[in-house]
C-alpha cells in the first residue's frame, strides 16, 4: 500500500503492474470500509452506552466485593462479606419488604387502574376520545420533582386542600407524610400521578390492537358485559402489553419513587418509606459505604433482571402460541 509513489522511474510494464495493484488495493480498501461503515455509524451511540451503562455494571459487581469508603486509596477485598452483611441486616430486609409493598401498590395504580381507564376511553366517541387521551397524558410531561412538591402542599396536614376536601365528607385529617403507613402510600400516589398517563397510553395501544372481529364473535357467543369482554377477550389478547407495563411498573416505578422519597421523607419516618433504590443511595452517598451500596445494587439488579427474563420468556412463548 504505502511507498508506491516513492519509486519514480519504474518501467512501463512495471508501472502498469503497480497501477493494477493499487487499483486492487483501492477496491480492497473500499470493501473494508463498507464492512466497518455500519460500526462507524453505530459508534457514536455505542461508545457512550458501553462506557456509561455496561462498563459501570461490571464495575459495580467488582466494587461489591470491596470494603471501601470511595475516597481512601485503601480498597480491601472482602469477598462475599458485603452480601452476607446485607442478608443479615434488619434494615436491608425492611427495605426489601417495603419494595414489595411499593410494587403491589404501584401495580394497582399503574397497571390495573390505567387499564380500566384505557378501556373506558375506547367506549366513547372519537372526538372526546382524542381529548381524553391528551388530557390524561398531560401530568406525564411534568417532573417528579414538581409532582413531589405540589403534593407536599396538597398533603399538608393543616393547610393542604386534600385534608380539607376529605373533611367535607366527614373523614378525619390524615398525616399523609408523617404517619408511617400513609407516608408510603403518599410516595406511591405522587409517583403514580406523574406516570399514570404514560401507562394509560401504552395499555390503550394494547387494547386497540385487539381485532374487532374477535370482539364481535365473542358478543355473538353471548359474552356481552364489559367485564366479561375484558376478562375473556381484552386481557388475554393484550397480555403482551400488560406484561410489558408490568415490568415497566416494577423496574421503573420503584426507581421513580426514589424522587419523592429523597425530597420529602428521606426514607422516614423510621425507615418506613425506604426501599431498595433509596437504600443503595443512602449507603453510597450518605454513609459512603460503596461496597455495601454496590452489593445492594447488584442484588436489586438480579431481581429486576429475573423479572425481565420472565417477561421475555412469556412473550416468546405467547408469540409461538399465536403463530
Amino acid at each position: 500500500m504505502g511507498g508506491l509513489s516513492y519509486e519514480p522511474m519504474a518501467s512501463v510494464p512495471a508501472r502498469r503492474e503497480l497501477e493494477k495493484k493499487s487499483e486492487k488495493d483501492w477496491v480492497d480498501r473500499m470493501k473494508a470500509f463498507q464492512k466497518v461503515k455500519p460500526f462507524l455509524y453505530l459508534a457514536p451511540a455505542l461508545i457512550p452506552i458501553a462506557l456509561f451503562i455496561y462498563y459501570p455494571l461490571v464495575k459495580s459487581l467488582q466494587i461489591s466485593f470491596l470494603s471501601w469508603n470511595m475516597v481512601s486509596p485503601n480498597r480491601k477485598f472482602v469477598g462475599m462479606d458485603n452480601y452476607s452483611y446485607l442478608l443479615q441486616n434488619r434494615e436491608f430486609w425492611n427495605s426489601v419488604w417495603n419494595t414489595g409493598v411499593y410494587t403491589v401498590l404501584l401495580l394497582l395504580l399503574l397497571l390495573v387502574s390505567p387499564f380500566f381507564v384505557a378501556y373506558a376511553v375506547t367506549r366513547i366517541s372519537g372526538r372526546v376520545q382524542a381529548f381524553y387521551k391528551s388530557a390524561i397524558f398531560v401530568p406525564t410531561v411534568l417532573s417528579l420533582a414538581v409532582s413531589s412538591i405540589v403534593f407536599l402542599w396538597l398533603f399538608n396536614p393543616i393547610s393542604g386542600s386534600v385534608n380539607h376536601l376529605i373533611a367535607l365528607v366527614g373523614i378525619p385529617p390524615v398525616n399523609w407524610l408523617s404517619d408511617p403507613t400513609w407516608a408510603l402510600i403518599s410516595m406511591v400516589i405522587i409517583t403514580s400521578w406523574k406516570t399514570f398517563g404514560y401507562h394509560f397510553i401504552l395499555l390503550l395501544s394494547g387494547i386497540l390492537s385487539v381485532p374487532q372481529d374477535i370482539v364481535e364473535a365473542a358478543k355473538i357467543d353471548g359474552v356481552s358485559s364489559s367485564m366479561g369482554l375484558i376478562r375473556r377477550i381484552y386481557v388475554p389478547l393484550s397480555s403482551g402489553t400488560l406484561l410489558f407495563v408490568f415490568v415497566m411498573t416494577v423496574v421503573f416505578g420503584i426507581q421513580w419513587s426514589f424522587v419523592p422519597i429523597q425530597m420529602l421523607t428521606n426514607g422516614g419516618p423510621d425507615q418506613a418509606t425506604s426501599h431498595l433504590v433509596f437504600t443503595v443511595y443512602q449507603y453510597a452517598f450518605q454513609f459512603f459505604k460503596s461496597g455495601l451500596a454496590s452489593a445492594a445494587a447488584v442484588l436489586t439488579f438480579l431481581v429486576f433482571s429475573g423479572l425481565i427474563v420472565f417477561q421475555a420468556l412469556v412473550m416468546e412463548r405467547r408469540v409461538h402460541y399465536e403463530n
Partner: protein
Amino acid sequence: MKIKVNPWQLLLLLSLLLSFFPLVWMVSTALKQTDQIFSDFLNPIPLPVTLEHFIHAFNSSPLHRFFLNSFVVATSVTAFQVLTSIFAAYALTQFVFKGRQALFYVIVASMLIPVLVTMLPNYLLLSKWGLLNTYFAVILPQLASGMGIFFLRQSFRTIPKALLESAEVEGATDWQKMWLIVVPAVRPMIVAIGIILFINVWNEYFWPLMVINKQNMFTIPLALQLFINSEGGTSWGPMMAVATLASIPPIVAFLLVQKHIISSFLSTGVK
C-alpha cells in the same frame, strides 16, 4: 325521566379530575395572595391575582441561572441523543452486517439497566476526571439514548424501499441517503422523539442530584428541593410559583406535538 349514567364515562371524568386537580392547585396557589392561601383552602380561584410569589422567587434565588443550566443541559443532551440515534437507527435499518440483531438487543437492554447499578461507578469516573459540578457531568453519560434509537429504528423501517433504491441507482452515498431521503421522510417523528427526549432530560432529578451539589449549577428540578429546605415549607406561594415555571417548558413542548407523541407511543408496537 331516566338519566342513564355510563359508568365508563364516570371513570373517565374521575381520572380527568385527578389528573388536573394537583395542576390547578399548583397554578392557583402560585397566583393567590398569601392570606388567601392560608384561609381559602377549597377555592382554586385567586382573588385577586398576584405575581408577588414569582417576583419573590426570582429575588430570593438565582432562578434565572437554574433555568439557564436546565436549558443548556436539556438542549445539548437532546441534540446529541437525536444525532446519535439517527446514525444508529440508519445503521440498524439500512446496513446488513453480522451482529446487527445482537447490537440492537444490546442497545434495547441498556434501557432496562437500572440507574442504581450504574450511578456509583459513573460518579466515581466523573469525579476522577474532575468533572463533578459541571455541565459535562450531567451531559456525558447521556450522549446516547436507547429509547431514541428504538423509536427512530421503528420509524426508519416504514420508509419505502423503492425510494432508497432509486437513490442508489443515481449513485447516492449512504451519507446522502441518510440526510436527503431518510431524515426528511420521517421528520415529524424525529421532532416528536426529540421533544420526548427533551422533556425527559428537562425533568431529570436523579442523575443531576448525584453529580451536582454546587448551587449555581443546579437544574430546575434540583432547585425545587432548595425551596423545600431553605423556606421551611411555609412559603407555599413561591414554591408553587417555581413549580409552575418549571412545568411550562415541557407542557408547551408537549402541546406543540401532542398528536405525534401520543401516536408514537400508541404505535410502539409492544404487543
